[in-house]
């Protein structure tokens, strides 16, 4: 398999801050790589280097076998970029935005216009297509931005946090759109700080922190690597949290995580269903009523916590508040029991 995206030893410093500290990546043709990390981990810097927007201080970056530093123009012909901030002109209509991008890819007048209409249809923006983009909702702008990245049907796509700030419904729409891209044969690098997103979309996940790769594998591999399942219990009353916590504490490895708001306790265990049965027996002896019980494999959130010692959303400057991101039921980890 050919690697459509490759970096080796990528380094980028901003003054004293090292944004990238020797990053190696390889993305085979037709696959999605999820680049996962908290704010400031270096995800955007990596994308900016690969899309010719930034020069690295050291290391090599290649897209479709072309050296990004040596031939930026050739790279630009083959890539599409959808950035963190929707890069659309707000005074232009959706159609005008896409048409403009088509002309700048030198598709020609007729082809640009056709492609613009086609993409507006595909992203359900056909009705809003002739309204200025400043009238669009956040989700619509993101879809328009993604559509702009697809105008020239590029072989390689870079999506930098495509769903940050979107509501759950828009996020699922975006996920579906992204899945259909890879069905069309594109190679994709996706950055995200949402564990669920990498889990849902990526064939391969690279976890980075402080500009360095700290883990690499498929979602399953990463979870297996960290071993063990998680017992999740929701109790009926706040007052019952403490007693349940101490019971779980006797059985689990490490600390029991308690979320008071949802009255949920999470504990890492080894020994699977047997341990869960034991826990339930002990809780039964008390007057605690359980609203929900489950044994699940670790999520990428758990993975990240274990790898870095801190939660992923360390700097809550984008509307996230340290809580895990709420994801609709159907996208939650399937429970083993």
């Amino acid at each position, binding site marked *: 398999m050919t690697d459509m995206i490759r970096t080796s030893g990528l380094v980028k410093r901003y003054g004293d801050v090292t944004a990238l500290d020797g990053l190696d990546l390889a993305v085979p043709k037709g696959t999605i790589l999820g680049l996962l990390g908290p704010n400031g981990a270096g995800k*955007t810097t990596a994308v900016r280097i690969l*899309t*010719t*927007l*930034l*020069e690295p201080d050291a290391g090599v970056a290649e897209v479709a076998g072309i050296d990004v530093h040596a031939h930026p*123009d050739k790279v*630009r*012909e083959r*890539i599409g*970029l959808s*950035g*963190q*901030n*929707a*890069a*659309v*002109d707000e*005074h*232009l209509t959706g159609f*005008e935005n896409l048409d*403009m*991008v088509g*002309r*700048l*890819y*030198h598709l020609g007048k007729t082809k640009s216009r056709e492609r613009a209409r086609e993409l507006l249809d595909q992203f359900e923006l056909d009705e809003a297509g002739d309204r*200025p983009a400043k009238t669009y909702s956040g989700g619509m702008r993101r879809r328009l931005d993604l559509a*702009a990245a697809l105008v020239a049907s590029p072989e390689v796509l870079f999506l930098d946090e495509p769903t940050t700030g979107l509501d759950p419904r828009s996020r699922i729409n975006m996920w579906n759109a992204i899945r259909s891209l890879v069905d069309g044969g594109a190679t994709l690098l996706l950055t995200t700080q949402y564990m669920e997103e990498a889990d849902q979309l990526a064939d391969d996940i690279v976890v980075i922190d402080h500009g360095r790769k700290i883990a690499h594998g498929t979602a399953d591999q990463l979870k297996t690597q960290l071993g063990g399942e998680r017992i999740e219990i929701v109790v009926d009353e706040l007052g019952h949290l403490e007693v349940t916590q101490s019971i779980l504490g006797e059985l689990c490895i490490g600390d029991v995580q308690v979320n008071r708001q949802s009255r949920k306790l999470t504990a890492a265990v080894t020994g699977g269903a047997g341990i869960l049965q034991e826990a339930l027996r002990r809780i039964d002896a008390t007057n605690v009523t359980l609203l929900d019980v489950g044994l699940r494999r670790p999520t990428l959130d758990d993975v990240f916590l274990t790898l870095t010692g801190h939660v992923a959303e360390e700097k809550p400057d984008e509307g996230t508040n340290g809580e895990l991101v709420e994801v609709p039921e159907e996208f939650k980890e399937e429970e083993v029991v």
Partner: protein
Amino acid sequence: MASVAHTLGDGAVVARRNLIKIKRVPELLLWTTMSPIMFVLLFGYIFGSAIVLQGTTYREFLIAGIFAQTVVFGATFTGAGMAEDMQKGIIDRFRSLPMARSAVLVGRTASDIAYNSISLVVMSLTGLLIGWSISTNALEALGGYLLLLFFAYAVSWVMAYVGMLVSSPEAINNASFMVIFPMTFIANTFVPIDNFPSVLKTVAEWNPVSTLAQAVREAFGNTDPSMYNTDAWSLHNPIVYTLIWIVILLVIFIPLSVRQYQKTAARSK
């Protein structure tokens, strides 16, 4: 290497985008056209009441000066437009596309020719209403208008460069005010320079805004004998001297701006 046709084609796409903004935000155009009207009326009636010329009326003398001042000030739009673009995500989109590197600048400066053309039309109509007229032929007059637009285009490249150096679009107004205001006033734009103190007079004689106004007055036939009370070569050959300035500005600021564009855009976030 991107060919010239490639650059112009991409520049035209960007210019079209800038012009659509004028259509969508008509207030911009309103202010662009209101201030020249105000200038023509204000100066025409206020200064006109005090200044007497021998060969022509003050209002005739004034028009070319106001034209020169307005198109030079118009370059501020270029600077503000560039400063605004550099702050937005759209510049990342442009830089990741296989378009000519200078296209954003080419498009920006080109679309501002449209701004200037519109204000020239509005000012000409206002001028006609208050008694200005062209006493030469259409061809010469056209030459005058072209020289104005050409000079404004060169100054646009200067302001595009400045626009990328400042941190916000608002800063450009202050920056340009400090430079453009004296540049358009220490000149023969609004009053004859005969009675200027000696140093200022020399500056005014060699100021390209003076020679631009002088050349345009000649093109419109709004000349006055006092305009030639000078030994300065520049004012006796205003067209050539102005053209020299245009070439110098373009030769310096086109490459400088293109380089700055690459640098600034790479730095932003």
